[in-house]
């Protein structure tokens, strides 16, 4: 009797303590009128005031409602979204989610988002949305995700090294940039120094060449995907990339653009310029911040820009939300003209062409390219098809024609999966 009761007593005490400690949070139940918004952590650290302003606007338009913004991280926000979709919603599930513009198509095709077509007119500047973003929010002719902001790719360079190499005017064509790269190499023969640091398998940059020469990655012909990398124009672009890389970059031919980070190489003094998002200028090291500026990557035709990959985010309403109209209202407030202008002031590209300013980042966005809006595009990325192709081309393992043909066929078969 004693033993059993002591066991039971122990268990009871421990359990009681645990219950008290852990469920005390549960009593603070969310009020019935809460709108839950999932934004990425970039907003929390970059522009919390813009978020606060939108919340304020929403709350004044809808008295009795509060906005609960829960910040997510890029690594697992999709996993969390999947669990919410599987559970069919429930308390605390999001009414608005931020999605990367390459992530949306798969979810739109599966019917994860609410149809916002009827509200399209109410979103500010919707007639002038950047095409790269607008495409990523539309599926089957219907609107499922609203453009939020974008970022393009620019050249970040060392003004001191450029002037020391005798480069007086910024290059306005690919050929000129190649000549300049050779000048920079001549004046800086440190081991591992790159006039233009580009990682070998940086397909975000390399595909710009393909589009610059009029080629493409894939296109839909009567419902079926057809690979375009093997077309003569694409191959011309890939050749141009190969030549530029060999002249300008001493980076590894087989590793990606995060091993190492270009800005780390730049900060170590081993690059005269690098190509990447405009925020790269944040991390060039104390000693070079004063001599760092940016310009738009030139295309092969004099005076044009190289098409840059338009990265960005959209805002969608999951079908599991029970506040679709209010969610659309919040999105309207968060993407209003004043909101977008505030985002622009923080260095982002706003979501509409009529709002574009003159920063290097925005000028680069004038000519941009985007990935095929296919349900299985993420599988192409995950399978590293483009990266492998670039590695094969640069190392000479395959000729440009062979590598492009193989990648093209590969991509078509992946995209054409049911």
């Amino acid at each position, binding site marked *: 009797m004693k033993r059993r009761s002591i066991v039971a007593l122990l268990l009871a005490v421990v359990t009681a303590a645990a219950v008290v400690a852990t469920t005390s949070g549960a009593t603070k139940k969310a009020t019935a009128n809460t709108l839950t918004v999932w934004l990425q952590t970039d907003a929390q650290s970059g522009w919390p005031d813009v978020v606060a302003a939108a919340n304020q606007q929403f709350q004044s338009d809808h008295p009795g409602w509060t906005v609960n913004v829960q910040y997510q991280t890029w690594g697992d926000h999709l996993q969390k979204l999947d669990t919410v979709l599987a559970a069919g919603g429930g308390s605390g599930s999001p009414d608005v989610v931020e999605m990367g513009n390459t992530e949306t198509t798969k979810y739109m095709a599966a019917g994860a988002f609410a149809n916002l077509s009827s509200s399209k007119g109410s979103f500010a500047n919707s007639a002038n949305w950047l095409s790269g973003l607008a495409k990523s929010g539309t599926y089957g002719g219907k609107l499922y995700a609203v453009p939020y902001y974008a970022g393009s790719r620019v050249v970040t360079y060392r003004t001191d090294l450029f002037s020391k190499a005798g480069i007086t005017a910024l290059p306005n064509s690919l050929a000129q940039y190649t000549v300049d790269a050779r000048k920079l190499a001549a004046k800086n023969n440190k081991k591992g120094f790159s006039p233009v640091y580009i990682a070998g398998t940086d397909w975000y940059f390399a595909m710009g060449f393909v589009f610059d020469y009029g080629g493409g990655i894939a296109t839909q012909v009567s419902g079926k995907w057809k690979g375009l990398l093997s077309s003569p124009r694409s191959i011309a672009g890939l050749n141009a990339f190969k030549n530029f890389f060999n002249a300008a970059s001493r980076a590894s031919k087989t590793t990606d653009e995060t091993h190492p980070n270009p800005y780390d190489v730049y900060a170590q003094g081993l690059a005269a310029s690098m190509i990447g998002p405009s925020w790269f200028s944040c991390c060039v*090291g104390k000693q070079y911040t004063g001599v760092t500026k940016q310009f738009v990557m030139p295309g092969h035709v004099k005076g044009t820009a190289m098409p840059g990959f338009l990265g960005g985010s959209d805002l969608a309403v999951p079908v599991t939300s029970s506040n679709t109209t209010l969610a659309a209202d919040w999105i309207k407030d968060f993407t209003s003209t004043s909101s977008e202008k505030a985002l622009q002031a923080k260095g982002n590209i706003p979501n509409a062409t009529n709002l574009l300013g003159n920063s290097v980042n925005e000028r680069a966005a004038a000519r941009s390219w985007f990935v095929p809006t296919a349900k299985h595009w993420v599988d192409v990325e995950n399978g590293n098809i483009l990266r492998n192709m670039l590695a094969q081309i640069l190392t000479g393992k395959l000729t440009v024609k062979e590598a492009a043909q193989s990648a093209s066929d590969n991509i078509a078969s992946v995209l054409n999966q049911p």
Partner: protein
Amino acid sequence: MKRQKRLRRLGWDAVAILVFVVMVFPVFWMISTAFKPNDQIVSVNPTWFSLHPTIAHFTAAIHKPFFWDDVKNSLIIVLTTVAISIVVAFLAAIALARYRFSGRVLFIVLVIGIQMLPQAGLIIPLYVVLARYHQVNVLSGVVITYLTFVLPFCVWTLRGFLLGIPKDLEEAAMVDGSTRLGVFLKILLPLMAPGLVATSVFAFITTWNEYIFARVLLNDQARQTLTVWLSYFYGTSRHTDWGALMAASTLTAIPVVIFFLLVQRKVVFGLTAGAVRG
């Protein structure tokens, strides 16, 4: 004889220090990076020890939103889980190691089988179950989830320790007239102390560092654990602030070491090994 023993011990001490240096080097690297100014972190020639240490990263880390809330949540979740799992698992381990009952083998298979399940596959259905019981976004939901994964391990390990204690010790004591409870308190518990300590340290560390379930189950940043808080340092699409991340990681490691220092003192590492009378 004594001097020879002392020399031999010194020799082993030297070997142990060498092993310590090799094993701890990555941790040292993490801590020293936390004190380095940014340009020394990415420099071409790695600096072993910064001559201009800075605590800027630590201040940045502590001021990142919800740090103290998340510390509190982690402590509550982990201490609750460890306390419950040690008690409950110990009882189950006694049943397995000292009793013969039908269904015994089935229970063992269940215990070991749970640990063989790839956890990735359980995330979605577990969330669905917990959502149904309103255990999402509350600490108790996380505690129950952790218990599910930690209990089988603790049962399995404690049973192993129990089996190392000869049964005749208990039986001799019972012949001498002590009650079952007396045997438990005076003989079994002290002998099991090292095993209980090792198992509780494991339970502590596993739950302290657990990430994915905490991530999926806890939405409000005020309710999250330290590992989720840590993920915000490397979860942006922009550059990662390595100095701050290393400082933040060092901070999250501290409670673990404190816990270990507290429990180890009571038992094994303070005493000489094996104080058991045969």
